[in-house]
């Protein structure tokens, strides 16, 4: 019985390790191809390690960064993600507190609209949203965060209201009796309590905004501003022969910072996913 259990555990470990190889291999394959000479990257040769005569070192990376204007794209992606997520967190946490504490019909209606917006597919609003953004001059990387606030409000309001409901009213009452204004109560009392939810929500929203492709493609002017996903799609989707080496290199430069960030704040990311699902 005991040895049986041990055997089944060993089998489970081996199976999991094999699956792990499937998970790591695709990224490894892109890595080895990004080090090969452009001509050596063929459809059937993707599994071969670079050899002495087709190894080019980091040449593809240099090529990719310059021809795709990658640093500019990185900057746009960073600006859009940071501004949008900060704005979403700030505005939606305030709105969520208001919705829960002032529990009128208007708050309720707003809350249910937010939930509803999470189910609606983006294709439903893509044309009209892009048009609205153009008219209101929200079509550049510095203003697009307002669009993201509107479209990301559903998830954020949902997460924050779920958490605010559980905070005892007495804490806020005590603060107000001591003379705090509503703004002081919110920033000095509520925000510290909300911190775990703020981190979780920030991570979920960052994962979405950083990788979002269709919204910025339709809203931003693709000739002037390209986020990283847009740049990669544009690079690959344009006609003529694609420089495969540079393409692989760009995929690597896109993935590496994400993986490093993931390894650093893994704990928060996984907690964020669980919190989002449990609230759901």
């Amino acid at each position, binding site marked *: 019985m005991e040895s049986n259990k041990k055997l089944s555990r060993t089998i489970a470990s081996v199976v*999991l390790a094999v699956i792990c190889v499937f998970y790591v291999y695709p990224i490894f394959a892109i890595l080895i191809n990004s080090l090969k000479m452009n001509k050596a990257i063929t459809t059937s040769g993707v599994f071969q390690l670079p050899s002495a005569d087709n190894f080019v070192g980091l040449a593809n990376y240099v090529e990719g960064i310059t021809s795709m204007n990658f640093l500019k794209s990185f900057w746009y992606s960073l600006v859009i993600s940071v501004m949008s997520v900060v704005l979403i967190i700030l505005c939606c946490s*305030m709105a969520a507190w208001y919705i829960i504490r002032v529990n009128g019909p208007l708050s309720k209606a707003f809350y249910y609209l937010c939930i509803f917006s999470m189910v*609606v597919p983006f*294709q439903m609003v893509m044309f*009209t949203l892009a048009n609205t953004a153009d008219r209101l001059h929200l079509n550049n990387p510095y203003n697009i965060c307002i669009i993201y606030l509107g479209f990301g409000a559903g998830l954020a309001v949902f997460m924050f209201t779920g958490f605010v409901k559980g905070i005892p009213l007495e804490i806020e009452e005590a603060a107000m009796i001591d003379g705090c204004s509503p703004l002081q109560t919110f920033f000095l009392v509520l925000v510290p309590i909300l911190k775990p939810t703020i981190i979780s929500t920030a991570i979920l929203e960052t994962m979405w905004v950083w990788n979002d492709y269709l919204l910025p493609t339709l809203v931003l002017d693709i000739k002037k501003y390209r986020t990283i996903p847009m740049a990669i799609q544009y690079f690959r989707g344009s006609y003529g022969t694609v420089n495969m080496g540079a393409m692989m290199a760009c995929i690597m430069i896109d993935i590496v910072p994400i993986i490093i960030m993931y390894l650093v704040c893994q704990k928060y990311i996984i907690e964020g996913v669980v919190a989002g699902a449990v609230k759901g």
Partner: protein
Amino acid sequence: MVGKSIKKWWPVFLLPTAVAFAIGFVWPFIWGIYLSFCKFTTVKNVKFIGFSNYSKVFADPTFSHAFWLTVLFAFLSSVLINILAFAIALALTRGLKGTNVFRTIFFMPNLIGGIVLGYIWQTLLNGLLSKWGQPLLALSAFNGFWGMIILLCWQQIGYMMIIYIAGLNNISGDLIEAAEIDGATPAQILFKIKIPMIMPSITICTFLTLTNGFKMFDQNLSLTGGEPAKQSQLLALNIYDTFYARSGAQWKGIGQAKAVVFFLIVVIIALIQLRATTSREVQQ
């Protein structure tokens, strides 16, 4: 008291989100519904034509093809992802060595965007297919469809696994122990205790996988681009294609009508699924 004193502060607390929500969602949504009854190429020349866009939607063979393909895709990917994610979660809640490393690796693909994922898998799968002498992704709708299934499984198993692990860790050890003392077999513990106890996780995971499968766009665009001849187009890509890739004055209105139909389908599926699985949840 708190409610009363912050009530008049709504311009600070509620207004910014409400305005952005109106710009980013409410207005485009309502306007989108209106435009689905119109013929238009830009917003300046809109002509109301009633339901004729909708009748053209159902007459468009690419739409019905994309519809059935999406239904098949969403159900198949949802079933596969949930079974595999649950199996991995079961293995990872047994206190094996290296559990944390496994968990970290399985979750990783979720952080990579759909466009990049599509190109990674296009490279790999085309490599495999050409080694086996099979038609490449862009030449065979069958291969393209399975390519998308593999890609979505690879991406989402980790996410669902995290939710299942959290659910399994919530089951009290006493319950399992009591069952073991009563002589329950491992299979009985799994089907009679573990699965009923994590029904809430199953509800949320099937909801997420089904709606993600229905709404999938980026991966479809980059992995197959709908090739060959729109045969691997899912609904979201079909709508995008109708809007932006087809020439002719009628197509934008038809695209918008397709989007409304798509929206209704997603809502109906989500409601049916939520009702079906929440009714199986047990009270703790």
